[in-house]
């Protein structure tokens, strides 16, 4: 890499020679219009490639250039504008000050707009939630060192949840040009090394043409199933230095063509169809199957063709909760009865068909009958890494399609239809009728169970869930996150119909995802006019609460109702288990696991960040009016939080 000071001097000569009148600061090249997020034509940056025009010369320093018109960051903005990013989430940092400035000035802070975050974990988790609501990635900027380390947990969550997050990390590569002190500790030889185990691809471009090619490549890789985060490490000098005249002719933005998702092999599809049509008790289990709204419709079509029960594990909104074939609450029984199980993008097929006991001796047993056929369709078979163990135990399946489930479903459904006979149709109709009755009984049973402890204080999670449902069900609502385990009341009692109404969990079960992911998804929902709702865990809230300031600052409408059980409740139970296993009693299980003494005043924290907030609410009769007040705030475009003191689960 060229010495930056020498480079600036030579650029001054070149720039002065080529100085063109009227070469003032202006807007970026207009990005082409790209369907499906994909540019169809290679774009040529307009101003960024213009000759360098020195603006001022310091007379006391023999002609040192102290201003320039066209830094490399401007070209980078030209490139990322072609990728159709609406937002770039970031906590500001000097290692990317060049591109930061180019975004807000040269790029007019539009497409992408800079979203100010208070923690890099929030930046990435916001992008995580945003993608699942919007279906396209958000960009993230962070320091290559301290920022990436802060972001690491959220990146891991996105990786486990198969969500593309487009991360750009600043760095200062040329050691001889670093400012003493902080810039050294904020520089790194191989920034991506710290997260490479849980991203899909990374690069550290050494030139602007290299940046353009890698930026487009990164986008393509991130959005090809299985989707995962990608990382570009961008040198500070590359961002800040003027565009060298020597490379101006090489500056172009490559055309992006999105890769089509891989479909299952035709022979495997035919075999799966044969098994499913001939099965007496087929079962469809879906986890992250529906990548898009079309995925939901495709799964409905397959299920209705077969009149087969569907268990939605909830990694995405795969199947309507009130569809009569939705049998999610009877999952274990259906697994035990099934003779064919079709797993669609399952995180854990083995765990779906097995039971594990966490006793002093850990034991496991298969839940399926001997001879049950297991069919798997998952793109994860195309990209498994070794270090982090999120791939779960090895499932012994009979048909394994290394393919995208959503892309494969149409072919599978058609193959099933071709095999249908009159006898099978009759059998399917009888099965469908039986399942519809089972579905109805399950709903009634859930309603009956929800009535227990209805008037209790702390407030039952069922009561809280239904008080909220009563006031949102006639809106265009979306449950953007649900942090803290709450007895599955929403999935049992709410009517989920649309793909965006449930976004699934964190992926890696790293606490702290809920609040920022909800804010990111609410940001996506804002322009669609959807009412974003989140059920906010207390432990999750405390990880990086600054995201509530981001929500207030950027006027992101979001209704957050807290499931505040004043504990890291899962860990309370783990401590109980250990204490009793060691025959010591559980009297100290609260030590290190509860969030009491003092109780956290979450409403006051939120208010301090400019968020309308109420609570703590302990009387269930106070809930409905609090939700009404909060909805008024949200409908005028702002976030609102209600702290509800709840039962543990």
């Amino acid at each position, binding site marked *: 890499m060229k010495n930056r000071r020498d480079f600036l001097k030579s650029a001054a000569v070149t720039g002065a020679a080529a100085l063109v009148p009227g070469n003032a600061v202006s807007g970026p090249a207009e990005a082409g219009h790209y369907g499906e997020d994909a540019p169809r034509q290679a774009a040529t940056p307009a101003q960024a490639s213009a000759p360098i025009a020195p603006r001022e010369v310091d007379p006391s320093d023999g002609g040192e250039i102290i201003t320039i018109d066209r830094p490399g960051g401007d070209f980078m903005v030209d490139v990322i504008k072609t990728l159709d990013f609406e937002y770039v989430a970031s906590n500001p940092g000097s290692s990317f000050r060049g591109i930061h400035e180019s975004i807000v000035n040269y790029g007019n802070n539009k497409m992408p707009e800079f979203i100010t975050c208070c923690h890099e974990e929030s930046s990435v988790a916001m992008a995580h939630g945003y993608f699942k609501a919007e279906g396209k990635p958000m960009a993230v900027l962070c320091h290559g060192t301290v920022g990436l380390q802060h972001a690491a947990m959220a990146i891991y969550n996105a990786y486990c949840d198969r969500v593309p997050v487009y991360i750009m990390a600043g760095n200062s590569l040329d050691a001889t040009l670093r400012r003493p002190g902080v810039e050294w500790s904020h520089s790194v030889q191989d920034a991506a090394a710290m997260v490479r185990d849980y991203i899909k691809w990374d690069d550290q471009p050494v030139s602007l043409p290299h940046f353009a090619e890698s930026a487009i490549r990164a986008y393509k890789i991130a959005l090809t199933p299985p989707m995962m985060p990608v990382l570009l490490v961008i040198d500070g000098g590359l961002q800040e230095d003027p565009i060298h005249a020597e490379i101006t002719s090489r500056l172009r933005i490559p055309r992006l063509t999105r890769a089509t998702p891989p479909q299952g092999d035709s022979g495997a599809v035919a075999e799966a169809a044969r098994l499913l049509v001939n099965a007496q008790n087929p079962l469809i289990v879906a986890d992250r199957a529906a990548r898009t709204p079309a995925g939901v419709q495709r799964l409905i079509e397959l299920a209705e063709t077969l009149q087969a029960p569907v268990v939605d594990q909830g990694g995405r909104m795969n199947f309507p909760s009130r569809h009569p074939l939705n049998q*999610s609450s009877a999952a274990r029984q259906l697994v035990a009865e099934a003779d064919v199980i079709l797993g669609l993008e399952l995180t854990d097929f083995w765990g779906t068909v097995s039971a594990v006991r*966490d006793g002093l001796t850990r034991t496991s047993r298969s839940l399926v009958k001997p001879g049950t056929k297991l069919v798997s369709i998952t793109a994860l078979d195309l990209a498994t890494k070794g270090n982090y163990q999120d791939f779960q135990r090895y499932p012994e399946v009979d048909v394994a399609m290394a393919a995208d489930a959503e892309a494969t479903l149409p072919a599978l459904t058609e193959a099933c239809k071709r095999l249908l006979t009159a006898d099978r149709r009759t059998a399917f109709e009888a099965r469908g009728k039986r399942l519809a009755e089972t579905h109805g009984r399950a709903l009634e049973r859930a309603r009956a169970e929800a009535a227990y402890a*209805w008037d209790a204080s702390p407030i039952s999670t069922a009561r809280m869930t239904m008080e909220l449902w009563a006031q949102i069900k006639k809106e265009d609502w979306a449950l953007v996150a649900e942090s803290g385990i709450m007895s599955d009341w929403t999935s049992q009692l709410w009517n989920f119909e649309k793909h965006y109404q449930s976004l699934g969990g964190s992926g890696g079960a790293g606490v702290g995802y809920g609040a920022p992911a909800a804010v990111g998804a609410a940001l996506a929902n804002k322009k669609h006019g959807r009412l974003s709702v989140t059920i906010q865990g207390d432990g999750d809230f405390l990880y990086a609460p600054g995201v509530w300031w981001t929500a207030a600052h950027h006027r992101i409408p979001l209704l957050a109702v807290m499931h505040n059980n004043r504990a890291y409740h899962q860990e309370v139970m783990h401590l109980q288990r250990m204490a009793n296993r060691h025959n010591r009693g559980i009297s100290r299980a609260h030590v290190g696991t509860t969030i009491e003494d003092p109780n956290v005043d979450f409403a006051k924290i939120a208010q301090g960040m400019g968020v309308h907030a109420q609570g703590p609410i302990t009387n269930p009769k106070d809930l409905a009016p609090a939700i009404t007040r909060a909805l008024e705030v949200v409908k005028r475009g702002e976030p609102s939080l209600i702290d509800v003191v709840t039962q*543990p689960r």
Partner: protein
Amino acid sequence: MKIHIVALGIVALASLAAVGAQAPATQAAPVGNAEAGKKLYESYGCYQCHGREAQGSSATGPRLGPKPIAFTAFSQYVRRPTGQMPPYTSKVVSDTEMADIYAFVQARPVPAQNVPLLREP
């Protein structure tokens, strides 16, 4: 929308759900003190999985009251659980305390029928 096919947490008194948490007590239970039982239910952390009103949770442990299984089965399971529940031996919970806890879960109120919010679509 989150379904817990595989329990992530500790499924306390898990097998009682299969036995039937609503099954009436067929054996006479020792006379217990429900008020004392309430305190013990709290202090022994039963509520962590089963809720403060013994209402249960699909994620952690079944409903225990107001009609618990027979005391003998209840006691046996608490002492030697076969599921994910931690064992409460007599060293931790005495027989008298067990009876008090049982009296507490027995005394839980029967919920109101036709709660309006639970009847709406």
